[in-house]
């Protein structure tokens, strides 16, 4: 290994590349989510949507509580993921947990908007329905991302940059602030 590097033959190059890619694929296949990961994520997203819909009228503290519970569950689950697998995966944190994947962000926005509308109209059974739908869609999006990651780990491993996440967090907090103030 430490001898002077030599120019590999086509066969050696092909074998080395295949071996390297197989090892990467094996590592990606071994990466698992902690127990109850997707269930807890779906439940906490559903609860957060319901809290936002219920709280915007009279109880803005409910909106903040929903976000705080989500942040706590997300933090705990990311720590468990890191401990379980011995890796940090930026794509997993942003696309699956923070919901920056297209399917998660679109379904979440639709479910949140519909639940808030239903709450303002006093249709609480619809709030429950949209909350559950939002949580389920978020979970399905996460599972889909895991399958795509295992298919092409290098393309999906890295998440958004810290600057992008900070911008999104500021925008989200600003939106919540406006909703709470306008309630």
């Amino acid at each position, binding site marked *: 290994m430490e001898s002077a590097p030599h120019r590999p033959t086509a066969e050696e190059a092909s074998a*080395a*590349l295949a071996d390297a890619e197989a090892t990467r694929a094996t*590592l990606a296949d071994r990466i698992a989510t902690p127990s109850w990961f997707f269930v807890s994520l779906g439940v906490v997203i559903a609860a957060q949507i319901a809290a936002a819909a219920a709280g915007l009228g009279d109880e803005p503290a409910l909106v903040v509580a929903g976000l705080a519970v989500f942040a706590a569950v997300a933090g705990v689950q990311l720590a468990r993921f890191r*401990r379980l697998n*011995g*890796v940090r995966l930026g794509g997993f944190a942003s696309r699956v947990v923070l919901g920056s994947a297209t399917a998660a962000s679109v379904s979440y926005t639709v479910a949140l908007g519909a639940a808030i509308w239903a709450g303002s109209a006093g249709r609480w059974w619809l709030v429950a329905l949209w909350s559950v739908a939002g949580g389920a869609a978020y979970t399905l999006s996460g599972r889909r991302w895991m399958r795509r990651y295992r298919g092409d*780990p290098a393309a999906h491993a890295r998440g958004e940059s810290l600057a992008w996440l900070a911008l999104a967090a500021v925008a989200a907090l600003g939106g919540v602030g406006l909703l709470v103030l306008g309630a």
Partner: protein
Amino acid sequence: MADLDEHVVAPARLKLMTTLTAVSEAEFATVRDALEVSDSVLSKHLGALEEVGYLRRHKGVRRGRRTTWVSLTPRGRRALRTHVAALRALIDGID
């Protein structure tokens, strides 16, 4: 050896760097187990690649124990991309 990177040309280093593209960072033992090498062999490769700026190491904690975490640097990613492209050209007979 145009375009082939002398620091990555060893199959073990190609494997190490390629494997690290699957994660943002990995703990030492996770990389060692994936590559099926000994601690000393992995340490040697990590040291050599860190020296040329292709990866970085930092101390962290996992399961309550202090351990080492490893990640590719942007320079390392670029070097790997260039090296893999050169290998593919070699395989395709383009020289």
